[in-house]
């Protein structure tokens, strides 16, 4: 969609992308909106999209039997949700639950995968950006595991 192009260009994730690559990506983009309480995706479902959050908050949850749904991370404006579309077998590990009214740009993963196979430069640009996202999330997750606020007996 033409109107999405400036929004994509401004988003931190796509900064400094070449015009021709932006053109390719716009073709796979759409505007989406979730109401508070909506599930964006669920554990086990096929992962076909990722989302650039423009507004709102999304909680990544896992339902733990006997405990209930546990939130492991929340994401808000400017953050990128989802990378299972990149890696086979393309299945979501967690539930993504909008905890507020959330607006995002949804990008069609299958569409981008096909275009990346044909244009490896595009593929490299996308993977470079995703590597940073994954690294930041991995560091944060590891710090959470440390459980530093606990007092050792």
């Amino acid at each position, binding site marked *: 969609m033409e109107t999405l192009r400036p929004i994509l260009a401004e988003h931190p994730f796509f900064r400094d992308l070449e015009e021709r690559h932006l053109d390719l990506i716009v073709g796979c983009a759409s505007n989406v909106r979730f109401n508070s309480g909506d599930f964006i995706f669920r554990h086990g479902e096929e992962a076909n999209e990722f989302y650039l959050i423009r507004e709102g*908050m999304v*909680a990544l*949850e896992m339902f733990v039997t006997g*405990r*209930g*749904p*546990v*939130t*492991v*991370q*929340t994401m*808000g*404006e*400017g953050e990128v949700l989802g990378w299972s579309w990149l890696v086979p077998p393309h299945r979501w590990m967690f539930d993504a*639950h909008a*905890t*507020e009214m959330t607006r995002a740009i949804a990008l069609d993963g299958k569409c981008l995968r096909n275009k990346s196979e044909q244009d490896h430069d595009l593929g490299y640009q996308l993977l470079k950006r995703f590597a940073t996202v994954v690294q*930041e999330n991995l560091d*944060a997750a590891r*710090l*959470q595991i*440390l*459980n*530093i*606020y*606990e*007092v050792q007996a």
Partner: protein
Amino acid sequence: MKSKPEEMTSVAPPGLMTPVFCRVLKTQQETRDTFTIELEPPAPAQAPLFAPGQFNMLYVFGVGEVPISVSGDPRRPQSLVHTVREVGAVTRAMRALKRGDELGVRGPFGSSWPVEEAEGRDVVIVAGGIGLAPLRPAIYSILAHRQKYGRVVLMYGTRTPEDILFRKEVERWRARLDLSVHVTVDRAMAVWRGSVGVVTTIIPRAGFDPHNTLAMVCGPEAMMRFTILELQNRGVGLDRIYVSTERNMKCAIGFCGHCQLGPTFVCKDGPIFRYDNIQRFFEIREI
């Protein structure tokens, strides 16, 4: 090298190791393992009783003495407030004290948060767990002279929503238009609608100018380490980051040798340090 507290009259009589007994005015449970205890200050009680970031040695008769940061408002001389985490025999005994009981006090000791030096700059306060308690007096001081500072940001991380300290007060701060408050927890049940994630994830996105910011960080040592790195990544100089350190203390006056961190005595050169002054030692394991 350190922030100088204003000159105070020491509350102790001739013996520097001798506590003054103060009456308990009030105790209050804050979270599962943390409580606040308010004492009638020793006479003469005039503001300021302490500088933000300083600590007292609190003595429970016959049980023992521990260093606890003062967590109240330095401009209020009516009570001396400490927030304590129950971790051992002395703090457990302190929890059992009631209004009218006595608690021994020696102090105040140590260096303080650079509240004056931060004037004219943006202020970033990063608190982890009980680290919010020693920072609270600095927050009070800053809010009392709000117009002297630029943007003021508080980032507070803790284990779960049930561990959020001073929750109602934090919510009041969050409601202010001249204060940016971000609270996050390491994990939560889904009924929690706030942020879940380690406190450093807030740093890249918070609104402050890294080149004109003074940061004050307090929390578990591991948390301070990764916070400093994240602030540095954002562009805050190590000479603009202040941390509050903790070590075993017995005398609090630089004689017993227990609190040494490299060449510094945490009780009198600290506990608050400008980070670049201790960086080379802080990074060495088991120093």
